C-alpha cells in the first residue's frame, strides 16, 4: 500500500485512531521541515517512523509529544481535536514519551521512579505521606509481569540497571498508568542484542495492552519484526507507508538507501 502526501496513512483500520495528524506542516523560522504530513496510530498498533537524518522524524515525534506546536495542521486525539501548550498537556491525556536518557532519575530506587509524580499517598492535613509498602508491592508486581527477571529488588537504585532495563521500566510505568500512546525515540540505540530483545518485548506488551506505539529507529532489523506499519519519511514528507510483511529486510533497506541516494543526488 502506498499513499501520497495528504492522504491519511493507514486509513484501512476500523474505529478511531488514538492519535492522528492531519495536514501537519512545520517550519523553524523560514526553514520548513514538515510538509503536509497526515498519519495516524491506532490502538494496539506499533508504527515505526523511518527515514534518513533530516527527514523530520524527530520533529514529528516532538509534535506528537507536545514539545513542538506545528505551524499548521490539525491534531486529533481519540477523535477529538487537541492542541498542546506544553508536554505536560500531552502527558495529561495519556501520551507518554519515553526517551532512552530522559525517562528516569538514576539515583532513586525503582519504586520511587515508578511512582514519581503519581505517588500513592495518605493525606494528613497538609502532609502527603507516601504509602511506601503499597507502592513497593505495586511496582514489584508490575515489573514482574514484564519479566524483568534481573531486577532483584524494587529498592535498587535505577543506576544499577542497564539502558534497556530503564526503558523497560519506563514503558511498564506508562502501561501501568493507563497511557494511550507511547512515543519512543530510538529505543534500541546502543543496546546489546539481549537488551534490544527486552525492549522489543516491552513494546509488544504495550501493544497487547492496546496502546498505540510510535517509534523512531534506524536499525531496520529491529524495526521489521515489531512494527505493524512503517512510515517512510523523506525531506519532511511521507513518501511511503509499508504494512507488516509487505517487504523483507533487504528490500526495506534498499528502499531507504535508494531514496537516500536520490535525495542526496
Amino acid at each position, binding site marked *: 500500500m502506498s499513499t501520497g502526501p495528504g492522504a491519511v496513512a493507514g486509513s484501512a483500520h476500523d474505529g478511531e485512531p488514538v492519535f492522528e495528524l492531519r495536514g501537519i506542516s512545520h517550519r523553524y523560522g523560514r526553514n520548513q521541515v514538515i510538509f503536509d504530513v497526515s498519519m495516524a496510530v491506532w490502538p494496539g498498533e506499533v508504527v515505526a517512523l523511518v527515514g534518513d537524518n533530516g527527514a523530520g522524524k524527530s520533529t514529528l515525534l516532538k509534535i506528537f509529544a507536545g514539545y513542538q506546536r506545528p505551524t499548521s495542521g490539525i491534531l486529533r486525539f481519540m477523535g477529538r481535536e487537541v492542541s498542546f501548550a506544553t508536554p505536560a498537556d500531552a502527558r495529561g491525556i495519556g501520551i507518554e514519551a519515553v526517551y532512552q536518557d530522559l525517562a528516569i532519575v*538514576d539515583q532513586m530506587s525503582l519504586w520511587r521512579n515508578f511512582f514519581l*509524580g503519581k505517588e500513592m499517598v495518605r493525606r494528613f492535613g497538609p502532609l502527603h505521606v507516601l504509602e511506601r509498602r503499597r507502592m513497593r508491592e505495586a511496582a514489584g508486581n508490575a515489573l514482574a509481569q514484564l519479566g524483568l527477571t534481573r531486577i532483584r529488588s524494587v529498592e535498587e537504585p535505577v543506576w544499577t540497571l542497564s*539502558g534497556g532495563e530503564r526503558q523497560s521500566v519506563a514503558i511498564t510505568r506508562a502501561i501501568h498508568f493507563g497511557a494511550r500512546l507511547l512515543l519512543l525515540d530510538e529505543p534500541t540505540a546502543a543496546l546489546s542484542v539481549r537488551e534490544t530483545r527486552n525492549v522489543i518485548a516491552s513494546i509488544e506488551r504495550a501493544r497487547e495492552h492496546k496502546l498505540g506505539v510510535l517509534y523512531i529507529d534506524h536499525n531496520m532489523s529491529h524495526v521489521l519484526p515489531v512494527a505493524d506499519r512503517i512510515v517512510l519519511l523523506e525531506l519532511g514528507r511521507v513518501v511511503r507507508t509499508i504494512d507488516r510483511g509487505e517487504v523483507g529486510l533487504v528490500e526495506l533497506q534498499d528502499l531507504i538507501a535508494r531514496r537516500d541516494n536520490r535525495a542526496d543526488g
Partner: protein
Amino acid sequence: MSPQRSANRTPGAASLPADRVRRLLAEGILGIRELAPGLGLIAVILFFSLQTAHFWSPQTMTAISSIASTIGIVAVGVTMLMISGEFDLSVGQNFAFTPIIWALLFVTNGINEWLALIVALMLSCCVGIINGFVTTLFGIPSFITTLGMFFVLEGLNNLLISGHQLIMFDPSAAMSLLGARITDTPFYMPVVWLFVIAGIFWFVLSHLRYGNWTLATGGRAGPAKAMGVPTARVKRTNFVLSAFLAGLSGCMQFAYIRGVTQAQGQNYELLAITAAVLGGTSLFGGTGTIWGSVIGAFLLATIEIGLVLIGVPGSFYVTFIGVILVIVVIANVRLGRFGSSQA
C-alpha cells in the same frame, strides 16, 4: 548546578558481571549511607579517647555537642537543599543575622521576646525566599545568588551591630527553651533540637511526597519535571528551609552563649556543606541523608575539640578538615557512589 555526566558509560555496561558486582557492593554494603561516616566518627572518637584522658570529660562533651548541634541544624537544611541540587552560601551570615534581629528587638528595644523571635525567623525565611526566587526565576547558579546574599547579610550585620556584642545577662523563657542546660547533664538544649529537627527531616525526606520530589529534583530535573514534579517550587521551598534552619540555629547559639557578634557563624556555610558531604550527600544533588549530615557535624565538632585537647594549634583544625573533605569526596567518587550515579 548541572551534574557533570560521564559520557563514557555505555548502556549495557552494567550487565558485565564484574561491573554489576561492584555496583551491588557499593550499594549493598556501603548502601547504608550512614555506615561509612559512622565508622569514621567511631574511629575519630577512639583515636582521641586513646590520646587524651580529658576526652570523656563533661566539658568536652558540652563543647562537642554544642558545636555539633549548631552546625548540624544548619547542615540539615543545607542537606535538603543540596539534595534538590542547589547550594546556600548565605547560611553562615543568616546564622548571625537572625539572632541579631531577635536580640535587637527584644534585648535592646524591649519587644516581647516570642514576637521578636517570630519576626526574626520570618526575616530569615525571607532571605530564603529571595535566594530561591532569584535562582529559579533568573536561572542563575545558586552559588552566585547566595554568595551575593552572603555579602548583603554581612553588610547588614555590620551595620546593625557596628562592632559591638549584643549580650543578654538574664536568660528569658524563649532563650531557655532554645539554649538552656539540660539538668544534671553536660548537654544543652540545642543538641535535643538537633535530634528533633533531624528526625523531622528524615521523615520528610524518606516518607513524604515532598521528600520524593526533592530527591527527584536534584537527581535529574528533566525527567522529574516531565513526570509532573514542580521542580522550581521544590527548590524554592528548600531554600526557605535552609535559611530558616540557619536562622533558628543561630538563635539557639545566641540563647546558649547569651551573646551575639557579627562574627557568629563565620565559615558555617562551608562547614555545613562539609558536614553534609562527609555524611554522604552528593555535591551534584539527588542523594544524601539527614542522619549522615548529623554524623558529619559530630565528626567536625569532635575533630575540632579533639585537636585542641591533644595540643594541636586551633587554627590547624580548618586545614585538617580541608584535607579530609577532599579525601572523602575522592573516595566517594572512586567507589562510584555519586560518580557513576550521574551516568
